[in-house]
């Protein structure tokens, strides 16, 4: 695939800031905003917002530092999006939430929920992308007020075949996630589907192609079939956008472009822990450093921390070796895990790491994972955590 010249990458700033970071926490029963002090020791709780609503993702627009979008699906009501420009004091509903095109004979798909929100390129203010369940891509050009189906993917017969049916997807519905915009080129896009593989566009979404070479699939299935691929979370390194890390249903991988072949770097993880999990976090200034949070993916897939002992694992050499980071986390009998959007970082120095658990605990590390401290307990099941810098 032809690749155009791209602008050099701008390094993520680690300059001291006058305010602490914000943690945007989306849960099964509402959203919370935690406001940190500059030392990231004290956190002020703001919430619940939308108590009782299912909030799948809460994102702040990094381009204006004030627009929040919340993807809501609210029990039995249809899905929608809410928007705030004053850090959640007031919310207004999107005029046109993501919705598939009308199908012939009433057979079209309907969006069950918006799962993933990605602000577009920094030179495209007000533009957002959304990934949905079932798998679809939508784009807003007015700051999240109105959304339109985006790209050929939603209705392309080949892509629809790779998406499978709703019974082929994750337990609460198949998802389109990890929508990534290359910081050097707004037309260079990636996305992942659970299930349905990982895909790339170099023409602004007019076309996409699978990027699955080297990725493994469940034993006994054909890795050449895109439908069998299940990337859980893919992140692009801000300091080197030619490097991507992936936590997959079948291991941890790295891809260095222009190569099209993923390398399984999870084989270096301890065998008793394995390399199955959901989240993937990359260091904003060091492309050799990333974190995962393994879960038990053996037998019936308990989806708990392996052996009830939760821990992050970090590599600082691109996946050659991994180090366990569990200081402060429970030593045993902790049967929670972390969903794919529920682990993230800030860009301070040293970076802060944050994770939300399936049992409603919010944990923070202000030393790049060396030690952890609980910020909140007894929240609902946490679906997503984002760190943001408010203006």
């Amino acid at each position, binding site marked *: 695939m032809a690749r155009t010249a791209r602008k050099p990458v701008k390094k993520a700033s680690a300059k001291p800031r006058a305010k602490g970071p914000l943690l945007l926490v989306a849960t099964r029963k509402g959203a919370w905003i935690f406001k940190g002090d500059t030392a990231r020791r004290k956190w002020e709780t703001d919430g619940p917002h939308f108590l009782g609503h299912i909030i799948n993702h809460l994102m702040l627009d990094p381009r204006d530092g004030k627009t929040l979008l919340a993807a809501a699906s*609210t*029990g*039995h*009501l*249809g899905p*929608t999006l809410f928007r705030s420009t004053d850090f959640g004091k007031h919310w207004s*509903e*999107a*005029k046109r*939430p993501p*919705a*598939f*095109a*009308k*199908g012939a004979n*009433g*057979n*079209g*798909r*309907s*969006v069950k929920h918006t799962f993933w929100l990605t602000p577009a390129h920094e030179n495209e203010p007000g533009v957002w992308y959304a990934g949905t369940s079932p798998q679809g891509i939508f784009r807003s050009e007015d700051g999240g007020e109105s959304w339109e189906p985006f790209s050929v993917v939603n209705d392309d017969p080949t892509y629809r075949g790779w998406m499978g049916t709703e019974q082929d997807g994750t337990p609460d519905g198949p998802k389109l996630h990890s929508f990534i915009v290359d910081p050097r080129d707004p037309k260079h896009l990636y996305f992942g589907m659970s299930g349905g593989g990982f895909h790339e566009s170099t023409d602004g979404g007019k076309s996409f192609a699978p990027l699955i070479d080297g990725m493994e699939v469940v034993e006994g299935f054909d890795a050449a079939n895109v439908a069998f691929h299940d990337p859980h979370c893919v992140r692009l390194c801000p300091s080197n956008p030619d490097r991507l890390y992936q936590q997959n249903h079948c291991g941890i991988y790295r891809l260095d472009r222009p190569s099209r072949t993923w390398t399984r770097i999870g084989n270096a993880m301890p065998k008793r822990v394995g390399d199955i999990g959901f989240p993937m976090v990359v260091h904003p200034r060091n492309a050799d450093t990333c974190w995962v949070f393994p879960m038990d993916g053996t037998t019936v897939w308990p989806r708990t921390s392996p052996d009830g002992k939760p821990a992050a694992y970090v590599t600082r050499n691109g996946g050659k070796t991994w180090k366990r980071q569990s200081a402060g986390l429970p030593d045993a009998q902790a049967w929670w895990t972390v969903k794919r959007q529920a682990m993230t970082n800030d860009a301070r120095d040293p970076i802060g790491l944050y994770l939300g658990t399936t049992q409603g605990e919010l944990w923070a590390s202000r030393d790049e994972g060396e030690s952890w401290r609980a910020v909140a307990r007894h929240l609902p099941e946490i679906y997503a955590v984002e760190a943001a810098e408010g203006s």
Partner: protein
Amino acid sequence: MKVLIPSPLRSYTGESEVEAEGATMAALLLDLDRRYPGLRFRMIDEQGRMRRHMRFFVNGEQTFDMMRPLTPADSVQIVQALSGG
């Protein structure tokens, strides 16, 4: 006609009973959406299908027919089944 609104949708209407017009159920829901933007999509999906657990009653009788005729003297009840945890 009078339309009873279930509690999950009262953030749109502000009250439990509202007035709306329409010669059919479909027209009534469009009128409700004009008065309370966004309300219809929470009940009816983009393919025109009633969402799971949303139910409509006319004068106490359940209907699944969006073309069911209505008159100003009818009363409509919108109900959301409560289930799940």
